[in-house]
């Protein structure tokens, strides 16, 4: 499981953030020591840091600058200051992404996923049971059999595969689609899911996508 360090001085936010991340298959840790954050960070060795700009004792940007002298841990800056100038400054200091409060939690998760994916560089193929999924080509392979998915179907399927241990809500799937510039409506999502089911059925994955009424979908 990937470790995410939360550096945020608002207790309510950091706790809810921890809840959110933990329920999305990350293990998250909240930073306690704002006086000497650098030591704690290097001790924890997180895979990613969510860094708020307004933290006690030291400004988040300065902490980032100091951190960059000794480490390349990916950092997403979180701030309530919403301006291009602030964003440019953070990126110059070495932030990997910049997101403004208040953020949509689904989008935060997508951005975290994107930063981690960019670094791990193994983004293009996914494995689900005996299926090999080539995302950019839109192909699922099972032995010699092959099915071709449309872009929308692939976005839905890869999201489900990436979050296969829990229920995925329609809202999350929708966000992931819109984040990929596929601005579809509710009906189209339903249609896409049923088409995806039919295609999976053709390679022997009957009922691979389970509907949990009122909650969402889960891969089984």
């Amino acid at each position, binding site marked *: 499981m990937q470790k995410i360090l939360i550096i945020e001085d608002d207790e309510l*936010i950091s706790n809810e953030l921890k809840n959110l991340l933990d329920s999305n298959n990350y293990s998250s840790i909240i930073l306690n020591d704002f006086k000497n954050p650098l030591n704690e960070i290097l001790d924890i060795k997180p895979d990613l840091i969510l860094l708020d700009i307004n933290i006690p004792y030291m400004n988040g940007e300065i902490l980032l600058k100091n951190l960059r002298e000794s480490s390349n841990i990916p950092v997403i800056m979180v701030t309530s200051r919403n301006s*291009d100038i602030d964003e440019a400054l953070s990126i110059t200091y070495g932030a990997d992404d910049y997101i403004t409060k208040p953020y949509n939690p689904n989008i935060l998760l997508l951005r975290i996923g994107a930063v981690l994916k960019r670094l791990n560089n193994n983004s293009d193929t996914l494995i689900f049971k005996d299926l090999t999924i080539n995302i950019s080509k839109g192909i699922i392979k099972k032995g010699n059999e092959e099915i071709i998915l449309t872009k929308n179907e692939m976005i839905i399927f890869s999201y489900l595969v990436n979050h296969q241990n829990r229920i995925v809500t329609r809202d999350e799937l929708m966000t992931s689609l819109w984040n990929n510039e596929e601005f579809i409506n509710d009906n189209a999502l339903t249609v896409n899911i049923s088409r995806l089911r039919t295609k999976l059925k053709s390679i022997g994955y009957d009922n691979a996508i389970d509907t949990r009424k009122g909650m969402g979908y889960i891969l089984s």
Partner: protein
Amino acid sequence: MKMNAYLKDKIYAIVTTFITIIIIYLMLMAFKVNIEIIIPVLVIFLICNLTILLIDYFRKKKFYSELLYNIEGLDKAYLVLETLENPEFYEGKILYQALYEINKSFLENVNKIDKSKRDFKEYVEMWIHEVKVPLASLILTINNHKNEINPKIKAQIKKLEDYVEQVLYYVRSENAEKDYLIKEINLGSIIKNIGLKNMDDLLDNNIEFIVEKTNALVFSDSKWLEFILGQIVNNSIKYKRNIKNSYIKISIREEKTKVILIIEDNGIGIKETDIKQVFDKSFTGENGRVRSKSTGMGLYIAKNMCERLGHTIKIESSANKYTRVYITFAKNDFYEIAK
């Protein structure tokens, strides 16, 4: 300073001179002084008085003409004192001193107001950043407790967020300081963000969000532009018609010297009598009164910001048919060459 106006002003001195000449003439005649003496005396007297007038005229003319001329030439007339030398004649000295004092107190006052405006702006910006923290925690909490919380709350919080954002950009756009950063940005990513931000509203209202080719590069500030487009899309959502196939269509037209972004909806549109005023401050029009409470600030701020960024914004509508907003970005040859 004109000679005839000056002479008119000095009419009492001129009249007095002529009366004096007549009196002297009559007196000298009474004493039977020789006419050959009387005339030179009177002429000398006249020349004396004329010289006094002329010297006075030219001393003043130099100062006042410069004053008037400089006032006209300056775009900030109150700075005129800086361009003048303290005059040599007494009245001028009084005027100069008075202007100096007036100017000083005026500038002090302006500075005071300026400072209080700046303080206010700083306070509002700070307040907005503060208020975003509880907003962020609310949104996270709602997301983590979806099953226990009424989903309507989410929509209300989105509204709250939008209003707060509007204040922030109003304060930013009204101030002379440069709060923006112009760089090359892709319209596609801006539109994607707008879509994501309004996704729930669009889906809840059954509005189709249609995006045609949008990958065009323009020079702008991405945050400001996002706000401007957000205002337009918000309006489209707010003023949709109760029909089945509501849509918001975003497209781009690329021409040789400009890129035009078009946002079109098939909502209730704007009445012809209202359309000229939609960019006016606090204008709400019939739609704003009938449909929903409107602040009348969104489009005003959007227009103001477009002007600051160097874009033009235009609106076209037919009541109960469509509304189209055009934002035009100039293509800058200089940047092309620099690349």
